[in-house]
């Protein structure tokens, strides 16, 4: 085996990592995944990861996902699981694109 180095640096979070790319705020925002999450009131909110404010609220998850795809046709969309199944419970997310 040849030369090697030990890596002791911490693994950067997504935000820290994207910061290192030296992008504008708008560009960073455009790269952030979109999240579809169920609210306590039973409807579904969509928001960009890292943003506090919802971009929209929809009565069904399907409508929320459709809107998320429109907002970010090429970006990642994560949907909060709302049922306990064999592939994941309500504490998990599934990536739809």
């Amino acid at each position: 085996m040849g030369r090697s180095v030990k890596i002791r640096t911490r693994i950067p979070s997504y935000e820290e990592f994207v910061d290192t790319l030296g992008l504008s705020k708008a560009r960073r925002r455009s790269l952030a995944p979109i999240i579809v999450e169920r609210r306590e009131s039973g409807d579904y909110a969509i928001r960009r990861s890292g943003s506090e404010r919802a971009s929209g609220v929809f009565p069904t998850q399907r409508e929320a996902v459709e809107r998320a795809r429109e907002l970010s046709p090429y970006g990642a969309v994560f949907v909060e699981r709302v049922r306990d199944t064999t592939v994941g419970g309500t504490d998990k997310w599934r990536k739809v694109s």
Partner: protein
Amino acid sequence: MPGVQKVTQNAVFLNIPYGPKFRSLYIAYVAGLIQLGLIPRLTLRQPGKKRRLDKILSEIRSCRYSIHDLSMVVVDRNPPPPTPRFNMPFELGLAVALDKLAPEGHDWFVFEAQDYRLLKSLSDLNGTDPQIHKGTVRGVMSQLLNIFRRVRNRPTLAEMMHTYNTTSRRVEMILAKTGAASLFEARAFEDLCAEVKIAVDGPKALR
């Protein structure tokens, strides 16, 4: 060496060929490094009016590590007369000099596709073992794991291959989104990095 430049301890300068034949290995380097918690850097990401050589030197100096993939250093048969291209070995030379001269040091690694080719093409490096990836994605990942030994949260080869496969499936989307003609354009590189990081972190990327 004049001037003081901040060195990013987890940044890796990638000295690789920019061309369609190298696309899968390029994605492999980006995906593998990000999975290892490192930050890949290319010269294409630096805007401005600086002379290209200054940009390259500045980028190498800002990185703690560099990788030099010489597997595609061949004679360019396009006119004017067939000519070898020296850019990549030259950048390797800059990194070697930096390692010798910079007080904070710089670790550089040479990657090749075939055994003994480096011995013939660059015999000044005799005594340096190149990482042989055999021109495959798995070979690149495996060699990255060999040289970068993460003390904690060390990924497996299977995880790195999974990230590569997930990211590869999104390449056409990245090109469509950025309007770039190739992944070697700055915007496409940035999107590629973000996509890899999302693939690596999954829901952990969310907040």
